[in-house]
């Protein structure tokens, strides 16, 4: 019977995952949007189900929040660019230059830090960047100093954390570029640079975009790295974190959280157009 009714089969198989993701998860996201339109009683701390756009008005008109929003998007973009610039040559070396044996070792070398805890890595950079840490120790004799804790430290640490997320899809994308294409380009008189610029880069572009979804999205919501190496600077995530919990202002936190949702939905829609979602 199931063989004759493929629709029924798909329906039965899909029901449990769709109940989980479609109802519980999408429901939670929808509830978040609804909550962002509610308000909170300042005295009792209870959430009052009164419809208002005040949270969004506050988010868009108060200077601090506007600055933090732009800063967060800027940092996420910068981290993404840094990771793309670092990842592309490595991925190219792995896919097109290294011997199969080296290639395998490099994949392991890139994957291993991905399994090391996020906190451990952020924390490691706290040690690296501290006033009596190794960077200061190396830089001091040259009259330089560690950047210390602040936004530059956040950018360094986030780029470090998400680099493997960029290398791996780009490597997979470059692996799929046939060597014959590179040979064709060189036979037609293209030098190495021309080949990379006009053949390899355009073909690797969807993979770069796929990797950028992770680097961008992960940076956009981060607040813990900022706590560890960011000194006093704040990102959107910190605003959300500081406003959540029963004692604080959950409706406002929800309104702030809609910013990364909107940014990511737009980003995913653009990524879809270049065919990057198949490379995830």
């Amino acid at each position, binding site marked *: 019977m199931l063989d004759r009714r493929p629709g029924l089969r798909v329906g039965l198989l*899909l029901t449990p995952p769709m109940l989980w993701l479609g109802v519980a998860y999408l429901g*939670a996201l929808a509830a978040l949007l609804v909550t962002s339109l509610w308000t909170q009683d300042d005295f009792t701390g209870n959430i009052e189900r009164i419809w208002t756009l005040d949270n969004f008005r506050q988010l868009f008109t108060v200077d601090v929040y506007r600055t933090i929003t732009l800063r967060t998007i800027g940092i996420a973009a910068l981290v993404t660019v840094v990771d793309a610039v670092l990842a592309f040559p490595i991925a190219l070396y792995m896919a097109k230059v290294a011997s199969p044996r080296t290639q395998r070792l490099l994949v392991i070398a890139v994957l291993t830090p991905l399994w090391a805890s996020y906190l451990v890595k952020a924390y*490691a950079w706290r040690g690296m960047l501290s006033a*009596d840490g*190794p960077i200061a120790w190396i830089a001091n004799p040259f009259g330089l100093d560690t950047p210390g804790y602040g936004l530059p430290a956040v950018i360094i640490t986030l780029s470090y954390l998400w680099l493997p997320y960029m290398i791996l899809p780009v490597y997979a994308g470059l692996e799929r570029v046939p060597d014959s294409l590179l040979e064709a380009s060189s036979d037609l008189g293209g030098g190495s640079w021309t080949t990379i610029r006009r053949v390899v880069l355009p073909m690797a572009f969807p993979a770069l975009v796929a990797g950028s979804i992770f680097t961008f*999205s*992960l940076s956009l919501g*981060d607040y813990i790295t900022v706590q560890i190496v960011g000194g006093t600077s704040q990102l959107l995530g910190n605003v959300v974190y500081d406003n959540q919990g029963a004692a604080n202002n959950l409706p406002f936190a929800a309104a702030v959280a809609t910013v990364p949702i909107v940014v990511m939905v737009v980003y995913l829609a653009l990524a879809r157009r270049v065919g990057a979602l198949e490379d995830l």
Partner: protein
Amino acid sequence: MAQTKTLSRGLRGTLGAFTAVVLVFIYVPLLLVLLNSFNTDNTFGWPPPGLTLHWWKVAWESQGARDALWTSVKVACAATVVALLLGTLAAMALRRTRFFGRNVVSLLIILPIALPGIVTGLAFQNEFSTILGIGLSLWTVIIAHATFCIVTVFNNVQARFQRLGTSFEQASMDLGAGRWTTYRLVTFPMLRSALLAGALLSFGLSFDEIVVTTFTASPHDQTLPLWILNNLFRPNQAPVVNVVAAVLVVLSAVPIYLAQRLSGSQAEAINIP
């Protein structure tokens, strides 16, 4: 595949050197964590004034770290079981079928990992405590973790289905095996290593998750990342945290080793030209 001669010698050399430098940059901070776990100075002055095993002993005896480790293992196992079930079902449903909602379903599976953890975390916290009025507990953590783990299993199983096609199962059916027998004797063995790889990734994701956990755990529940974060800024706990961090760095080699073994054996087990 590798070793194209079309790129110039100089460029190949530059790419190699660049890769080497970035790898150093990737590993130095991790080595620093390892080394600092032996540092006698509890503010980790560099270079270390001396080496000691003292912190390792203190960490070994730390009840808080042990409890947190156990909690993390429980959560990661439970989330992985849910992800295995739901991810496999979804991949099986999308196989061989082209219906209008197909892209919607795959997007829905990717979404929890594509959106920042803070969104997923806050959305679940709000759903549980404000909307449904359920108190936060380990269960709410597991539900939230499973949601973003589904994609790891789904991706692995789907890739395996695509690679293997349906001919093995059709052969089995042609030879008279029923649906269930075919699943048990053909489909499942074919999927086994993909399921293991997906489960491994899912366990790792859940074990390491901090943001979603912060938002969905009750104040009494402490997973290992929460324990680390809570103790990171306590001066007399910092060396103990560093030892735990060092252990995690060393342990991260285990899943990599397992994954290599899996992919190695799978190439041998399935001889597809």
